């Protein structure tokens, strides 16, 4: 491996070719852009017949010897249409090049430390410019990257509790440590809420994907870096104003998407269970709620209602499906509005950029919305001309969120009516039985009815947030090529969440009632909780200080050599504070609350159990500190060979490790070779060609692992003493995770630049990764984090841009294709039990398979006589489920495939004609599997026991009579439920589906309204646009009607937007 790296770096250096000038007449000229008249440096100039090849200098000038006239001069440059000029004499040539197309304009890569021309970059990056970024409409920044950034995927189906980031760049590189990509805004890591950034302020987004990124950004960059560059102040005598507004309307969520059993199926099940005495314990306890059907069965059995009444009531339940009411009374269309205004301009010595934005989003749930105001002011002043620049950037975002009522997250059975025909709320007797509520307290208690529909509108749960980010920076140009830059950023965020649970709300009434002891003799109850509202308050605050001093040095000598050096150090201190409190007996009008006794226990209803009043008090403070040094070298020879070297040392306040373990060194080397700039290069079919290569080591860390015994303080004990719990038993062998990253890329364009492509191969070798090794219970811990794993990720990223038709109708397309495969190469400790590979693969990696591997028990259909699912043991069928779900070896189950897409990407087509633009984006994910849900009898039974019966619609399609096994794989219902039998079916191959699908992500249509040059409003350009998002699935592999991105929950509703953008 190492030797290969070395060779790859050396190979550009082996091809030096010196061409000596010959004695002949000189042809001179200057090249400018036809667009803005700016001179073009580094354009390739040569004569077709014979002669030297040169590059234009910084002023766009060139000279080359010519042997004979006439000849044809060819001038080409990335981003411009190649020109051929017939030369007949040696007169000075003033050449104008037409900018070719927007997709080929010179790209600058923003690393957050420096901006370098894309062609000089050796590393792997993806740049998303303002236009592409603003293709999507909405208040969120990160959502806009979906389907337009190569190698980036949104993990929409995350395993609950698994360590997986919502956005992933180039697959996994860790098991337990941080999986989130680092987000950098302008020059520093961003700590606040990314949703507090106004997308209209963003100029571009750059993804840094390889080791070059990590050696710049340090340990937090092991998962890639998303560099967000905001709009800059631009020099312009008259202020430039841009105004953008849009409105987005979203459909209601599709409540019918999940396949749930209907009332008939559920009541059939409950009737059967009732007959078997399943509910006896609960019924006998008198107070706990029963499901509506069980309540009727019980009333009938106890003789409280007649057979006819019972039949009529059940008949009514059979016709109930509350989803129609939920859609009608609980949900509405979402509406989002956005207004953004920015002004920029200034003189040569002082420039400014101001912006303001207002977003308001009405959520589909009642009483729930988000509004946000963002303000920004950026100024750049040249204090000493050409010597000292000073810039400030002030950002502020204020947002207010109204969260939906907890009624939306509660469970109700599908046949539980919530709203009656007149639109009145219906009470739900889920927690307590009506008969018990009618007798308890005899008027000494508050109303104990729970009416979800009423609850849905009573909510008063607000979060207000204020984020500020202040960046100051000074750039001192000591002399030509030598600069010192000092920057400091202060980022703060405060948020206050107030959930005022009024006396009208069920939660408050319920809690007060539980702590009330009715006294039937005196009629005066003993209450432990004062009357009044309950206030849950959470205060959060963070402060991040970032400081950096950096020296930039650039020198060129002997024409061909250029050296860029960047070195500096950085300090970071990030603290967060959080406190939660609860107040009782709150009167909002005068702000007074009442004390409770948090120490003593009180008898509670309905059991008479002695309990303390919950206080919900918590305080926490975290501190993250980093001290780093870095150096970055870039050497370029003849503008066609580049060599980059970077190194960084990070030290962090890791807890409980030795001082030398607090530091980790990271480095990378890279090179590129621009073949098309060689003198011997003749553009033919292949227009440009460039090879790139980087290799380096980055790291990752998990701040929860420590080398010493650590403990956390916990709630008070049963006997009101302070308590502590063990966090980590000692691990003196703890070390940093190291990730070796290799990236090799080839960039080329063909057909005169009409098609350009970038193909990259990468390999990430995570060594010494932390893994959760299961421990024998005799040790007193069940899991332990230690460095036991190696993980390899390999992949390919391909970006293909094509200009299919040019003018007047222009059709361009972009195809993104990514292949990514990870393999657990080493995992020293086997899972505690072999079955964990099926049930909990993400915490029990399997050597030789992907992190997300999907395994399944082979199921041989159903037993014809009983409908029992048949497993396979030693090639014979078996129904010994306890044995089947505790496989002795790994051979007893089968490997299905990766659980995360291995091929993915997007395909975008932009068609424009005279100011009209239509853009359609499709995304696809392929090569992966998922496990769908089906009926699980044990949980279906227990859901019914807790008065909220629900199960999968497969219940109705189960095996009932012999013969059914011919057309169903859904096992029969058995009572008592056998959990191992349910588990076997749940993890059998009968429930595995292929995840492959293609989705029409969005469509955008815009029109640049033609403007008179001198219109009274001074409008320079004006654009209207329409946008539709989450349009639907075009093709999917599974036949089960499941959207593979939404196995649980509901698909994101379709949204439609209309907007207007004006430049003055």
């Amino acid at each position, binding site marked *: 491996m190492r030797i290969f790296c070395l060779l790859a770096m050396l190979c550009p250096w082996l091809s030096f070719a010196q061409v000596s000038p010959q004695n002949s007449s000189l042809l001179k000229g200057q090249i400018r852009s036809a667009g803005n008249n700016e001179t073009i440096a580094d354009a390739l100039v040569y004569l077709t017949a014979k002669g030297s090849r040169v590059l234009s200098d910084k002023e766009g000038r060139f000279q080359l010897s010519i042997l004979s006239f006439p000849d044809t001069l060819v001038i080409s440059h990335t981003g411009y249409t190649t020109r051929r000029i017939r030369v007949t004499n040696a007169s000075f040539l003033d050449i104008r090049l037409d900018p070719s197309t927007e997709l080929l304009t010179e790209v600058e890569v923003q690393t957050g430390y420096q901006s370098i021309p894309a062609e000089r970059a050796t590393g792997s990056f993806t740049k998303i410019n303002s236009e592409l970024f603003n293709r999507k409409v909405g208040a969120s920044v990160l959502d806009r990257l979906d389907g337009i950034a190569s190698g980036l995927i949104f993990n929409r189906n995350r395993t609950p509790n698994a360590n997986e980031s919502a956005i992933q760049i180039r697959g996994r590189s860790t098991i337990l440590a941080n999986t989130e990509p680092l987000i950098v805004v302008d020059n520093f890591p961003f700590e606040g809420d990314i949703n507090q950034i106004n997308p209209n302020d963003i100029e571009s987004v750059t993804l840094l994907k390889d080791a070059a990124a990590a050696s710049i950004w340090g340990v937090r960059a092991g998962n890639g870096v998303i560099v967000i560059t905001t709009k800059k102040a631009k020099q312009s005598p008259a202020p430039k104003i841009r105004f953008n507004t849009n409105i987005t309307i979203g459909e209601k969520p599709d409540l019918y998407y999940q396949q749930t059993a209907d009332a008939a199926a559920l009541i059939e099940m409950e009737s059967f269970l009732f007959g078997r005495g399943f509910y006896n314990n609960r019924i*006998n306890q008198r107070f706990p709620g029963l499901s509506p059907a069980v309540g009727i069965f019980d009333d009938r059995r106890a003789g409280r209602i007649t057979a006819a009444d019972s039949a009529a009531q059940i008949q009514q339940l059979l016709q109930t499906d509350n989803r129609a009411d939920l859609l009608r009374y609980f949900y509405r269309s979402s509406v989002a509005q956005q207004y953004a205004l920015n002004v920029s301009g200034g003189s040569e010595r002082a420039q400014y950029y101001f912006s303001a934005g207002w977003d308001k989003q009405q959520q589909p749930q009642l009483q729930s919305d988000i509004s946000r105001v963002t303000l920004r002011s950026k100024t750049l002043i040249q204090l000493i001309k050409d010597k000292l620049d000073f810039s400030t950037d002030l950002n502020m975002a204020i947002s207010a969120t109204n969260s939906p009522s907890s009624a939306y997250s509660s469970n109700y059975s599908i046949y539980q009516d919530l709203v009656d025909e007149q639109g009145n709320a219906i009470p739900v007797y889920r927690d307590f039985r009506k008969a018990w509520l009618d007798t308890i307290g005899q008027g000494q208690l508050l109303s104990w009815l729970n009416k979800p529909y009423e609850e849905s509108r009573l909510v008063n749960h607000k979060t207000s947030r204020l984020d500020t980010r202040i960046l100051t920076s000074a750039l001192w140009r000591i002399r030509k090529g030598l600069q010192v830059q000092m920057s400091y950023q202060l980022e703060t965020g405060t948020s206050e969440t107030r959930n005022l649970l009024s006396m009208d709300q069920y939660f408050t009434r319920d809690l007060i009632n539980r702590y009330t002891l009715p006294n039937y003799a005196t009629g005066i109850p003993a209450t432990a909780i004062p009357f009044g509202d309950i206030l849950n308050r959470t205060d959060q605050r963070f402060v991040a200080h970032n400081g950096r001093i950096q020296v930039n040095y650039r020198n060129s000598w002997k024409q061909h050599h250029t050296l860029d050096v960047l070195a500096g150090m950085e300090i970071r201190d990030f603290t967060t504070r959080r406190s939660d409190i609860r107040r009782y007996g709150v009167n909002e009008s005068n702000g007074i609350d009442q004390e409770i006794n948090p120490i003593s226990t009180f008898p509670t209803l309905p059991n008479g159990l002695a309990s303390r009043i919950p206080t919900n008090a918590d305080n926490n403070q975290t501190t993250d500190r980093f001290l780093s040094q870095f150096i970055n070298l870039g050497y370029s020879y003849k503008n066609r060979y580049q060599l980059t070297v970077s190194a960084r040392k990070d030290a962090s306040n890791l807890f409980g490790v030795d001082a030398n373990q607090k530091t980790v060194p990271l480095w990378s080397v890279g090179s590129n070779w621009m073949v098309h700039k060689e003198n011997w290069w003749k553009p033919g079919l292949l227009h440009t060609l460039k090879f790139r290569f980087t290799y380096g080591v980055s790291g990752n860390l998990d701040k929860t692992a420590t080398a010493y015994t650590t403990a956390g303080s916990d709630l008070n004990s049963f*006997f009101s003493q302070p308590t502590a719990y063990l966090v980590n038993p000692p691990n003196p062998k703890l070390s940093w995770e190291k990730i070796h990253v290799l990236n090799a890329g080839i960039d080329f364009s063909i057909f005169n630049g009409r098609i350009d492509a970038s193909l990259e191969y990468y390999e990430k070798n995570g060594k010494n990764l932390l893994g959760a090794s299961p421990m024998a219970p005799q040790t007193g811990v069940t899991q332990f984090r230690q460095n036991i794993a190696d993980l390899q990720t390999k992949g390919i990223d391909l970006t293909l841009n094509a200009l299919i038709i040019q003018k007047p109708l222009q059709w361009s397309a972009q195809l993104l294709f990514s292949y990514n495969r990870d393999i657990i190469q080493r995992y020293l400790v086997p899972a505690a039990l072999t079955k964990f590979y099926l049930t909990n693969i993400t915490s029990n990696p399997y050597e030789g398979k992907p992190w997300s591997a999907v395994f399944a028990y082979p199921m041989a259909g159903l037993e014809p006589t009983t409908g029992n699912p048949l497993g396979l043991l030693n090639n014979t069928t078996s129904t010994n489920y306890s044995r089947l779900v505790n496989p002795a070896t790994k051979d007893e189950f089968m490997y299905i495939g990766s659980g995360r897409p291995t091929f993915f990407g997007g395909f975008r087509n932009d068609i424009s004609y005279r100011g009209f633009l239509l853009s359609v984006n499709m995304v696809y994910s392929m090569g992966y599997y998922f496990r769908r849900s089906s009926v699980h009898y044990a949980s279906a039974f227990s859901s019914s026991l807790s008065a909220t019966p629900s199960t999968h619609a497969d219940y109705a399609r189960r095996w009932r009579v012999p013969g059914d096994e011919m057309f169903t794989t859904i096992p029969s219902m058995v009572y008592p439920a056998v959990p191992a039998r349910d588990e076997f079916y749940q993890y059998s191959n009968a429930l595995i589906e292929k995840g492959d699908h293609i989705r029409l992500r969005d469509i955008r249509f815009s029109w640049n309204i033609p403007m008179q040059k001198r219109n009274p409003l001074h409008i320079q350009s004006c654009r209207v646009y329409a946008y539709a998002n989450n349009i639907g699935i075009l093709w999917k592999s599974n036949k089960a009607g499941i959207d593979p991105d939404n196995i649980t929950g509901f698909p994101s509703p379709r949204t439609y937007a209309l907007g207007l953008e004006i430049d003055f």
Partner: protein
Amino acid sequence: MNTYKRLVYLCCCFCLLTACDKDAFLDKKPNSAIIIPSTLAELRSLLDNTQVFTYSPGLGEMGSDDYYLTEANWQALPFLERSSYTWESDLYGSQLNISDWSLCYQQILYANIVLEQLEKNPPATSVQAEWNNIKGSAFFLRGFALSNLVQHFAAAFDSATMTTTPGVPIRRNTNVHQNVPRSSIKDCYDSIFTDLLTAAALLSDIVPPVAKNRPSKPAAFAQLARMATASGQYEKARIYADSCLRLYNYLTDYNTVSTTAVSPFDRSHAETIYFSQAISTYVVLFTTSTTVFADTALYRSYTTNDLRRSIFFRATGGTNMGFKRGYSGTILPFTGIATDEVWLIRAEALAKTGQWQAAMADLNTLLQKRWRTGTFVPLTALNATDALEKIRTERRKELVWRGHRWSDLKRYNKEGANITLVRKLGNQTYTLLPGSNKYVFAIPANEISMSGIIQNPR
């Protein structure tokens, strides 16, 4: 030249920055809630964690004959509770982690961590008493946890085979990377006695009036007496029980206890010496259940003037009786140590060691506090055997639903009592023969697969 001067200044700036106290900057604790437990208060707070300590296994009580179920109600229960009731060979089914086992070992790890940290931080003279008390507590809690493990996961004590029969793994350090094999029963009992005797020497004489989760010297002696009885060493049991009762012998007069209250006792009940309750995993053990009934013959053995009849039992509808909340004050069975048990241990030990009149006196002291005032006629015995029988009958009645019946059955059968348990469900009859392998619970599957220790045959 000027440029180079500036560069020198710049380098100085850099050096200054680097020179500022780097170590102090990086020594800041990343999370305020995380500590390296070392102070006495921190170590005490680890032992006060009532989510780890104050819990005992529940498997034994589920296998005992204190209760019965009807077939329909049995079917409505979770798998493990169903198979416990019918003493299945495959007790755990698909369940992997059995808290009865793992929680006891978690308690042992906590105790070992505290002991190790105490050794690293020798006490100042001013806090010697607290240091001793914490150390004694850790020894007690380790001994208590190992006692529970031995009684559930190892065979009944038998002096003839005690060096060859496997007990459970004994863990005495915090090295989680090392798994230890099962020690012999003898080694386990030796370890328990050593821990508890060390604890008795260090702990305070006073039983805490409220914080019953904190061990005391009487608690250590009571647990020693309990384990001496379990291993048939009655002379030792008498001495230990006596040592306990000399320090703390309070008995509550049940005439002062409500016979109608749902919770007649609270968690700091005066008779309690050390608080513990069964783990909360099993719904069968909840005293709120309306489908778990007290054994009918047992219930009928309480006469009407015996106050325990109405304080220990409650009607569940019909003629079936359920259990009331006991000394735990919660819905879980009390499994800790109370004075009534110690009085009974001393009585039994006295009867076993030939002092049966003294034994009957102890028994009557206890029973006097249990009967309606003025109705109690002291019991008399004809001889030592009769005394022992009466004491064991009263032990069963006094300590019902407190997790003792299982180890008592193992001990009685070892002594030749030949008790066979029978359960009926519908037409099916299940029996548990004396000395059956099923008296020893299987070691959980995850333990066997991770440490490879020997499984118990069932």
